[in-house]
């Protein structure tokens, strides 16, 4: 067996070379696209983040420089926002996972016998996508405003203090993030759970594992690829989100996240270097967190 493997490997280099050339050719459009629309703005962003204000210019005029102090300044100035961003994103990711897992498990495993129910529930998970994300968030703002039925009822039942608000609180922002990114958690979870071989669960139960142990030792590890994909798809956009936390939607002055600060710097304060530096910090932080996470979760051989 081993010898056979070597023999085929030796006979192959020529075919391999031709194959790799074709592969390169096929990759070309993608590479060009990435260079044009991803690499160029990225370089431009890095350069902007190092600019200094023009000496005699107006507000919003900057010269190219190597002003790395921009980074120090923004971190000092916006550390609470940076921490808040990751805190909210983490909370939303955990909540989305807690809501989505049972849902995805039901659709992917329990509903296998009823394909119609399965498709119906999947459509329901995807249905919110048919309406603009901004509209849906605005609708929630209305539903959760101080005059809304929900809040007035809660106050009438003394479940909320009479002078309390829900919109503008961290809870409202986390609620909005969770709500908006739940499909991104549910769908990857569903795809792995749908393929889950229930014979493993039977084998676990045959080997003296009770339902909870089977879930912990077999179901969870086997659905790890879906959990990793879902949490990444939720955490990354949630950390950079600026809609939910915005004052115009569910947020308030105390719930501003990095996205809101970047927006304000770019569009209101016209402080482009600060906005660019913040964007790069956000990107780098996400990259580091995600790579640690993927390494730690040890799903390489399951993916």
């Amino acid at each position: 067996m081993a010898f056979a493997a070597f023999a085929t490997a030796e006979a192959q280099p020529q075919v391999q070379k031709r194959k790799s050339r074709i592969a390169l050719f096929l990759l070309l459009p993608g590479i060009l696209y990435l260079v044009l629309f991803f690499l160029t703005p990225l370089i431009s962003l890095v350069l902007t983040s190092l600019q200094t204000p023009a000496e005699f210019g107006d507000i919003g005029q900057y010269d190219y420089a190597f002003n790395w102090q921009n980074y120090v300044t923004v971190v000092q100035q916006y550390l609470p926002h940076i921490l808040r961003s990751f805190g909210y994103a983490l909370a939303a990711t955990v909540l989305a996972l807690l809501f989505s897992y049972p849902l995805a498990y039901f659709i992917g495993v329990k509903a296998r016998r009823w394909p119609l129910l399965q498709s119906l529930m999947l459509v329901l998970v995807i249905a919110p996508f048919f309406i603009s994300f901004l509209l849906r968030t605005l609708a929630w703002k209305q539903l959760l405003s101080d005059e809304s039925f929900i809040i007035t009822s809660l106050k009438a039942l003394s479940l909320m203090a009479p002078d309390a608000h829900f919109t503008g609180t961290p809870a409202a922002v986390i609620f909005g993030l969770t709500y908006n990114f739940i499909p991104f958690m549910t769908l990857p979870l569903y795809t792995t759970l749908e393929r889950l071989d229930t014979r493993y669960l039977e084998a676990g139960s045959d080997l003296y594992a009770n339902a909870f142990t089977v879930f912990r030792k077999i179901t969870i590890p086997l659905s790890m690829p879906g959990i990793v994909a879902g949490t990444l798809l939720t955490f990354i956009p949630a950390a950079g989100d600026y809609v939910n936390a915005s004052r115009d939607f569910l947020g308030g002055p105390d719930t501003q996240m990095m996205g809101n600060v970047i927006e304000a710097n770019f569009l209101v304060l016209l402080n482009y270097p600060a906005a660019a530096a913040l964007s790069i910090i956000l990107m780098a932080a996400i990259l580091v967190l995600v790579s640690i996470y993927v390494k730690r979760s040890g799903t390489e051989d399951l993916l």
Partner: protein
Amino acid sequence: MAVREFAERGADLELVGIQKRFPGFTAIEELDLVIPAGSFFALLGPSGCGKTTTLRLVAGLEEPTRGRILIGGKDVTDTKSHERPVNTVFQSYALFPHMTVIENVAFGLKRRRISDAVAKAHEALRLVELDHLAQRRPQQLSGGQQQRVALARAIVNRPALLLLDEPLGALDLKLRRQMQLELKTIQEEVGLTFLHVTHDQEEAMTMADTVAVMNKGAIEQMGAPAELYELPRTVFVANFLGQSNLFTGQVVGTTSTAITVEAADARIVVPTARAQRHQGEVAVGVRPEKVVLHTEEPAATADRNVLGPGRVIDVSFSGVSTQYLVDLGALGTVVVFAQNVGSGPVAGLGAEVWVSWEVAHGFGLDDVPVEAGRFPADDSTTSIAAQRREGLVSELEEH
């Protein structure tokens, strides 16, 4: 009732009045079965006869619609599968892909909090000669190795009852023979009760002490392999367990020792003790290897049945033996196995021959063959739909 101790020995398994219905069909009609402790019991039957369902009921993976299941005298019908002193070697092996071989084998021990789980798991792996692969993932092993890991994972728990669900089905012939021997050795060494489900009659006969032949959700006949083979009681058993030459006819004479059956224009004598029915229409038969081929008409004697003359319509050589198919006219065809020992007549294709066998080798069955053929009626909705469609298409073509 967590199962915290190893079973000292195998336990009896008792199924009382078991019935299992699924939406749309009944897998098991009515099943009563007692498997004594320490025995190697095989449930043999074609696919869809309910044997795997029986196994899953015992394992606790299905609930019976009716009836009780007792293991070692204790009623476990309402006990969850993880609380039963039973382990299964699954047909698909079902080795956990996210665990190494040793983690797989130690899984059951750890759930029961048995001390030295890993050491005991290594011991079980040594028994199946795979300890050197303990750190591999199941996907990195060959089918035969996976099968042995699955076996180790089950027997390491020393269950009172070990269930085997066609575990050898995916193996090639040589490996299967080897595993059959190993299984048998392990069973004798550890003294557990084995319940083996298979559709391979040879496997069932070589391994089991007792074989139960199942058909359409019920047990047709049960006994030691040799007993079943030598004296089948029903047409199904006669044909499923080895081959049989069957003749249907009326009983025309009965003495205290033998009955005479007239089939077509021939008379066949069968010992009374070996016949299930002694009057009316009966089916009698004989195994192909008991039948002798003659190129000249043999002298009729009281202790041999002679049929013929007939013509050889097929000869197939298989090394150790030659199989002849002899057309006996109204009696139908007879299969003859002749051992290639270099003596005895050799008949060519088309030769005129007679066949004979000792009266003591014949058997009489409890039922008669029906023309439906070997396979049960295919009455699934898809096949009915397909047949209807075919009928309509041919009707259209005619017009």
